[in-house]
């Protein structure tokens, strides 16, 4: 996803001179090409995320489209107040881009896990939140982020994510992508766990399968349709259960007098205190194919 993102940005920057790239001293062996092609539009801010985001807002207020790039957890938590006041409140055209949403940097330890970012970003007014699930979605979301005039949080995986989409699906901001129609269980995925969720869906008969890379604005229509037309909804995210994507889906369902039951597959309100690959930590958190399939069977 990371390479897809940077290649897409390079392409867009050729056509749009407003695009400027800031990094918080991350992107070794990934950003060099952009830096060489557009030296006057590439700035390394060193390890100073707060200053970087403030400056990104200042530059955006002068007519630029500024990307503020770091590891997901540093990109949006250290400079949270700059994102709130300088970017979101002022509707500055800044794209906060985080690599490593969830546990891609698993063994680096809990400081490098981004598992609360969706919650804090989606609670900000004016903020669009995009969490692509595979390289195809990464390209589409990068284009959507830069086409949008205003604040965006783009939560990427790291690299090596399996491609789930065959061809380019239709997408517009605020719309889900339907991967499979069905009337049994609806499985909705956001972010880098898409391939894992796709594997689970294969084992669930008559499942409806939605990918929702656009967490905010959320596709209420698709959720309400699933609540009406299918028996059970499962939402999957590599993120804390509280306040994240599953909560966003629950907020849509809550006002209904009756609706299909909702099962959240997410991190169960805990930090990881052990090393481990992304797959291992997903297992510890209970974000697994087995868990999704079992949940579907409960209401099957």
């Amino acid at each position, binding site marked *: 996803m990371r390479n897809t993102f940077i290649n897409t940005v390079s392409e867009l920057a050729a056509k749009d001179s407003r695009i400027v790239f800031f990094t918080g001293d991350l992107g070794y062996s990934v950003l060099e090409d952009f830096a060489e092609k557009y030296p006057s539009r590439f700035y390394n801010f060193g390890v*100073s995320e707060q200053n970087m985001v403030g*400056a990104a807002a200042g*530059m955006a207020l002068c007519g630029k489209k500024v990307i503020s790039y770091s590891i997901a957890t540093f990109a949006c938590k250290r400079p949270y107040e700059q994102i709130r006041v300088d970017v979101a409140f002022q509707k500055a055209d800044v794209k906060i881009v985080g690599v490593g949403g969830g546990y891609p940097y698993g063994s680096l330890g809990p400081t490098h896990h981004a598992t609360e970012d969706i919650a804090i970003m989606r609670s900000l007014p004016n903020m669009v939140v995009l969490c692509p699930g595979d390289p195809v979605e990464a390209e589409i979301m990068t284009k959507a982020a830069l086409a949008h005039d205003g604040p965006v949080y783009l939560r990427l995986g790291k690299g090596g994510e399996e491609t789930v989409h065959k061809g380019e699906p239709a997408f517009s901001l605020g719309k889900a992508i339907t991967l499979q129609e069905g009337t049994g269980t609806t499985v909705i995925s956001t972010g880098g766990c898409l391939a894992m969720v796709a594997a689970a869906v294969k084992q669930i008969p008559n499942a409806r399968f939605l990918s929702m890379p656009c967490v905010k604005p959320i596709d209420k229509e698709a959720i309400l349709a699933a609540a009406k037309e299918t028996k059970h909804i499962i939402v999957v995210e590599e993120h804390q259960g509280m306040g994240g994507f599953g909560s966003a889906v629950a907020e849509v369902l809550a006002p209904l007098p009756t609706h299909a039951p909702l099962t959240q597959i997410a991190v169960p309100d805990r930090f990881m205190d052990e090393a481990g690959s992304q797959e291992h930590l997903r297992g510890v958190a209970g974000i697994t194919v087995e868990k999704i399939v079992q949940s579907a069977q409960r209401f099957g």
Partner: protein
Amino acid sequence: MNEHELKEHIRTVRKHVLKMVYDSGASHVGTSLSCADIMACIYEVAQVNPKDPRNEDRDRVILSKGHGVATWYAVLAERGFFDKKLLDTFYADASPLTGHPDIQAVPGIETTTGSLGHGLPVGLGMALAAQVDKKAYRVFVVLGDGECDEGTIWEAALAARQFKLHNLTVVIDRNDQQGLGKTTDIIDLEPFAAKWKSFGWHVLEVDGHNHDELLVGLKTQGEKPVVMIATTTKGKGVSFMEHDTFWHYHNPDDEEYKKALAELDK
């Protein structure tokens, strides 16, 4: 403005500030009075046009110590950025004039501040945008000295030198007072000038109430970013408010308001 006109303009600004604070029950009168000369002098030097406040080539002015906003509003109103009558609504329900600057409030407010330590990074980004576009505009950022406790000030100080932002001028309202007392007693910033110098800035130490010194400093531009450490008196112009932390929060009563106005009119 000539010297006399500038002096009278600043007297009017201070009177507006006093009235706005008195009418509204707002706090921060001391900090607003301390930066009145600085803000007024910046607008003497900055290339801005109240009739075309969003012109792409304008100089940018930021009050990063946002709690001094009454002064900013008064200076902008006196210079014709908006109707002076609006000053009467400061702090009131549904007024655009909030107790800290809001970019959407009135023309001339270049960025929202109020949480300390935000204005300099934003100003740095504006100065960098001028560089990218090869434009000549300058950026002026006013900081409080207490605000310099914030790490972002020093992050931005490092980056401004690195990116060679010769179009960036910082003025520090050095009144040696912050929330709970004297800056020197809380987090001592000294040797303050030496700190900025070691960060690669061109440092000027001026009297923050001396208009000649301020104007000369504000016109100074070289290869480095410029920082002016402007020594000021918190509560300047009202004897019983000067140097007193009480007036960071307190609001004048009828008697105090009359007395203060009389002093400003002297």
